[in-house]
């Protein structure tokens, strides 16, 4: 029985469980004289039966699924002839993966020997047996669970409390998935980053002033420099993000204030969606806008003033990125300013404050936590943005604070390091993970700082 069919069958069983559980509760209620004699509503007895039917069986299924492969492989290896098992582990692994390839119909590395063929057949039969065992076990557990609860259904059974406990458990599981994913991501980056730091000292990476990750693949190659100082790359990210925030924060905030406090309803209903369209433009489109329109414009106007501007500049990328993240700032700030209670505006107006005094001294401070949240979202967008920088700011890692020169950012470097053929034992490839790790730590710190700030200044309204 295939896993999908088994799964559907389990679902069907649970639905049946729900109905028979509910029916028993209803009939019990009738005998006892009304639903009020039961501890819980009949639907809870049904749900409890369904839970007991599907959850234990499902978990068993999952556990079996995760161990199936290794158990079958182990059984198959145990059945191989003596001379095959005596092979060194590396060779044995090749043999096993060849046999598995044979089973799945993939190409194998060498010639197909009778030994492999028989092993593959053995493997297939083992797999069939395993699936049968799984199906039988899952169904038995499901039916047993269902019957057990069904027998226990009595007016005193606290079905609602148990159902609520199970639901709470499910909610906990769902909320931990995000956490575990984060932990998984961190661990995977950490693993590769540690391998990088085994080859390049941490201090060289963190404090080195030169970034030039070209490594020689063969001994005789030229042009390999292999300098892994991450400072220019991070400086580039900070420079471009700062330019972007310098554009987006004031413009976004001002437009939010205009929209929420000055614009009349009709204007607002037109302008706000228009602003939000900006957020929907693909970043690639912004990228070539930056590269084809903004960068030449800056270069030409720089030339008029006699300033030397490179054709790919941090300024162009930063400006366009700033425009891109305006809607994040404005839309979120507009929402939070609107959410400030009208009573605060009334209070300010009633002591004779002007509109601008009210906004400056009452509304913005009251909305500050939300505004900071919006700005933070914008910063993380700016730091994570890749496309615009690739197209408008270039790839050369200059350590400069001059926005008129080409710079590069962390995300761009990660992309360029990982594009194309890779060898995973070269520091060039592994450097991407080290960059990712430091970037991750950086944004994490930023988040923590912002959260502390928000918590400190959060005001209660009622």
């Amino acid at each position, binding site marked *: 029985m295939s896993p999908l069919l088994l799964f559907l069958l389990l679902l069907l069983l649970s639905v049946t469980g729900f109905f028979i559980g509910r029916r028993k509760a209803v009939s019990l209620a009738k005998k006892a004289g009304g639903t009020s004699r039961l501890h819980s509503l009949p639907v809870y007895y049904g749900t409890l039966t369904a839970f007991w039917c599907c959850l234990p069986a499902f978990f068993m299924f999952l556990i079996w699924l995760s161990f199936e492969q290794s158990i079958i492989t182990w059984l198959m290896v145990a059945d191989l002839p003596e001379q095959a098992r005596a092979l060194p582990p590396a060779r044995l692994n090749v043999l096993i993966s060849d046999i598995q390839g044979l089973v799945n119909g993939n190409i194998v590395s060498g010639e197909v020997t009778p030994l492999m063929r028989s092993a593959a057949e053995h493997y297939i039969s083992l797999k069939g047996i395993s699936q049968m065992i799984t199906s039988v076990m899952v169904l038995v557990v499901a039916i047993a669970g269902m019957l057990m609860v069904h027998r226990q259904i009595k007016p005193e059974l606290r079905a609602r409390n148990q159902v609520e406990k199970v639901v709470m458990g499910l909610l906990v599981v769902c909320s931990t998935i995000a956490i575990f994913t984060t932990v998984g991501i961190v661990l995977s980056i950490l693993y590769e980053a540690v391998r990088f730091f085994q080859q390049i000292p941490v201090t060289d990476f963190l404090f080195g002033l030169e970034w030039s990750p070209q490594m020689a693949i063969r001994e005789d190659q030229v042009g390999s420099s292999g300098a892994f100082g991450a400072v220019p790359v991070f400086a580039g990210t900070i420079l471009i993000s700062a330019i972007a925030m310098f554009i987006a924060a004031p413009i976004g905030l001002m437009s939010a204030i205009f929209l929420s406090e000055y614009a009349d309803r009709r204007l607002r209903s037109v302008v706000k969606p228009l602003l939000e369209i900006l957020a929907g433009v693909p970043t690639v489109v912004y990228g070539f806008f930056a590269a084809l329109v903004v960068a030449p414009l800056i270069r030409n106007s720089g030339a008029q003033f006699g300033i030397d501007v490179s054709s790919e500049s941090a300024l162009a990328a930063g400006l366009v990125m700033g425009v891109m993240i305006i809607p994040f700032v404005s839309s979120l700030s507009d929402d939070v300013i609107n959410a400030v209670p009208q009573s605060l505006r*009334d209070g300010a*107006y009633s*002591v*004779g404050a*002007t509109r601008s005094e009210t906004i400056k001294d009452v509304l913005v401070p009251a909305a500050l936590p939300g505004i900071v949240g919006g700005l933070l979202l914008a910063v993380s967008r700016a730091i994570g943005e890749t496309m615009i920088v690739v197209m408008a700011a270039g790839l050369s890692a200059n350590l400069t604070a001059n926005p008129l020169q080409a710079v590069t950012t962390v995300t761009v470097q990660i992309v360029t390091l990982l594009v194309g053929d890779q060898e995973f034992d070269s520091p060039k490839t592994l450097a991407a993970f080290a960059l990712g790790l430091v970037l991750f730590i950086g944004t994490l710190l930023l988040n923590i700082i912002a959260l502390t700030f928000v918590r400190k200044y959060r*005001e209660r*309204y009622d």
Partner: protein
Amino acid sequence: MQEVLNKKNVEKRILAPRESRDTIGRINVSNPRMICRDVNVYYGDKQAIRNVSIDIGCNEVLAMIGPSGCGKSTFLRCLNRMNDTIDNCRVTGEILFDDKDIYDSSIDVVPLRAQIGMVFQKPNPFPKTIYENVAWAPRIHGIIESKSDADEIVETSLQKAGLWGEVKDRLDQPGNGLSGGQQQRLCIARAIAVSPEVILMDEPCSALDPIATAKIEDLIEELRTQYTIAIVTHSMQQASRVSQRTAFFHLGDLIEVGATEAIFTKPSHQLTEDYITGRYG
């Protein structure tokens, strides 16, 4: 969000078009601070208040009572032009303050509101410290020039509002951290801080417990010596305790005005009598 809220309030006050009813009782007083004549208020094309004429005397407490939706809060908000913040609200008639119509185009609403302060139904301290809640308004009006000015205004305002003793050791804590009654007194201190001449109170005690209410009522009694006060209230006991004159509103009309004692002992209009004896509303 706010638009929806405003709309709701407006709809509550919509009245069927009809002739206004005459007011019973003496509307004028010997030394008026504000004079209202033929005030009409419209929300869009619906009329919420009809031809209300009444004087508010110097150093008196005028109570406005009436069933919900009768227009008393709307009328109160006309007196310092708080209705300006509602989009489709229109006011006609005359409201004289210092012999000038406050709806005249030459009047600047900002200093006007500093002269005619307001206290709201729900305490609404700013999300600032207690000190800043009081000091902010005088500062934006340029009344405060130095730190010592500010300290002085904060102390006297809080003292007048009867809150000084309770908060003098924690002026740097947020105003929202106070209890409901303390917050309301903080809002009164905030209104007093700009030295207004008239204080409008819109059901200032409806969110408070009896002890806090009693404190606010004592405070109103004290404030009367320096300020003119107009108060909207749903509690007839409160009206009879704190006010010298009472005005009864009904469906947008000012039905009856008179000395508080007279209104509550021998009302002239049947509607007034029904309302204060609890047979109506």
